[in-house]
């Protein structure tokens, strides 16, 4: 007997599942297709403007910085000034996300824009989020040529652009949104809440463990900003 069959046989024997196999299979397939949401905390179940505000507050609580701009066209300028204010070289790494590439980076004359995955030498990377979770101030990013996963982890500064309309109350809403687009599960889905950290030395919280030392979120929407 293969190890697979042997393990499954042991599980079945321990569970005593000899009877009613049909009912068990039905229970499992119902569960796998129903996507029942369970308990959703009330915290994120609020109207859109409040949701965006809560998202920003929670992200800041997790040590991210948050900025709001009126439109995508304002993003390159915001990124340039972020780099300047942190004394960083005027260079970014970017995926091929059309929402990012269409923003008019060429107007930032001094800015070097490299596209593709990060090679580990980028000081700052820019990604576009699939969505956000107000309940916890979390970003959701999906892998692929649009937003290579390496940009989320290798640069010291990770700048993430998110559309105000993509900020949901809870993580379940984002799973539904992913399914609604008819997308297969991407190779990697990253939920990111603040910059990298460790408490492994004497339980002292330190930012910038192996991933980005800083996470800057730019919320794009009509509500506020330049």
């Amino acid at each position, binding site marked *: 007997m293969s190890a697979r069959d042997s393990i499954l046989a042991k599980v079945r024997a321990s569970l005593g599942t000899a009877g009613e196999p049909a009912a068990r299979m039905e229970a499992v397939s119902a569960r796998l297709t129903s996507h029942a949401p369970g308990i959703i905390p009330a915290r994120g179940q609020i109207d859109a403007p409040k949701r965006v505000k809560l998202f920003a507050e929670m992200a800041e609580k997790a040590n991210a910085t948050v900025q709001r701009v009126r439109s995508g066209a304002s993003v390159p300028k915001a990124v340039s000034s972020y780099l300047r204010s942190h004394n960083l070289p005027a260079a970014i790494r970017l995926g091929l996300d059309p929402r990012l590439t269409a923003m008019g980076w060429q107007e930032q004359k001094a800015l070097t824009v490299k596209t593709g995955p990060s090679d580990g030498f980028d000081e700052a990377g820019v990604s576009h989020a699939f969505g956000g979770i107000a309940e916890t101030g979390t970003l959701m990013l999906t892998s692929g040529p649009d937003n290579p996963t390496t940009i989320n982890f290798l640069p010291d500064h990770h700048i993430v652009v998110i559309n105000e309309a993509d900020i949901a109350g809870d993580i379940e809403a984002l*799973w539904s949104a992913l399914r609604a687009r008819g997308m297969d599960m991407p190779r990697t889905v990253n939920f990111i809440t603040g910059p990298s950290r460790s408490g492994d030395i004497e339980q002292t919280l330190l930012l910038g463990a192996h991933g980005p030392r800083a996470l800057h979120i730019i919320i794009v929407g009509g509500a506020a900003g330049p």
Partner: protein
Amino acid sequence: MQITSPNFKENAREALSDAALQKALGNVRTGFIDKRRKAIDALPEFDDLRDSARDIKNHTLAHLDLYLEAYEKKVLEAGGHVHWAETAADARAIILDICRQYGARTVTKGKSMITEEIDLNECLEEAGIKPVETDLGEYIIQLRGEHPSHIIAPAVHLNKEQVEADFRRVHTHLPVNRDLSEPSALLGEARRVLRAAYFDADVGITGANFLVAETGTSVIVTNEGNGDLTQILPKVHIVVASIEKITPTLEDVSQILRVLARSATGQDMSVYTTFSTGPRRAEDPDGPEAYHVVLLDNGRSSMLGTEFQDMLRCIRCGACMNHCPVYHAVGGHAYGWVYPGPMGAVLTPALIGVDKAGHLPNASTFCGRCESVCPMRIPLPKMMRHWREREFQRGLNPATTRYGLRMWALLAKRPRLYRMAAASGAAVLSMLGGRKRRLSSVPLAGGWTRWRDLPAPQGRTFMQQWADRGRNKAAHR
């Protein structure tokens, strides 16, 4: 790793007199508990979510065979490989095979308790493959040749001076006069050293917090980002996970995530929660070219259907040990194997045998804090009691314990005799206690009085006082 659980008592005695360890353990007592409390107070639905999480796992365990099959099918559809391992040795052989198949010389590792359970690092080293632990705590203890003393804070038994000494001993390529007095300097140095390791590694090995049956996805929950760099930069990603990590749907995982981080570190969400499905796709510019999952049983299937099944709900948050007075006193290494604290006291006997780990479920005051904080509502004290029963049934306790328990049973089954014995005992001990009302030595109770005084009884038993009370009431009526 060498199992020292049979020497728990000696281990504990050593731990209690280890000044550096006692200083470090102070961080557990103060840090984790307050942070968890704050996070939970801010979420009114927390207890309902615990019920929900418990129900999800109970349902999954009752249908585990079917969910394992569903999960496997999805991994294969996504282009991944699934390997089944009945024992630790099987898992080691499978992982070694994969590493050899890809000609691996260096392997980076995300933090994983399951690879501790199967002694993976020793096995890789013997085969000439260099394992590099990338979680800061794991990296530190790997330099020291130690094992984790806590399931989420592996180096919690160390102070920063010890870490500094290890870094100076090992990182000899760096200037001798560099300043490492602050934890931030130590972190910065580890970050620079390990950055190179991620790019050099041929294979990245991680554990999994969850395996999602709906999508064939493995999930890791981390704060440092090392697990992600471990799994996206090398050519091959190997996930090692035990069979009970299966969870039906993305929604089910999302429920449990809400109780996991809060119970572990007091965060609403850990910094990185990463869902990985198969190898890199045709259009992907990064990610591993191959994705292997090693599903390990190693004794779990035998826990199903027994009084220990509930233990398989455990999500390894560490809340039980963070709140355990015994763990606070002796730390994790005293438990003598991979899993310390209350969850270890229940799981270890199941995995290595109660004959070796019998002391662990005995090292509990049954104060119940572990169960009260467990996000999965695992009845830990009850299961420790089950182990004590099994230990007794199998005649594993020392002769004096068995004799004592038999004497106790003899009295307990004869109420009149018991009351007489208790009354005379209480009277005599009260007299011996004198004005101090304390006893510094009692025959047959040296195990207690060697370390502390025994408070002397008042002189009359509860039953006697109760009878008096009844008589007084009757007289006043």
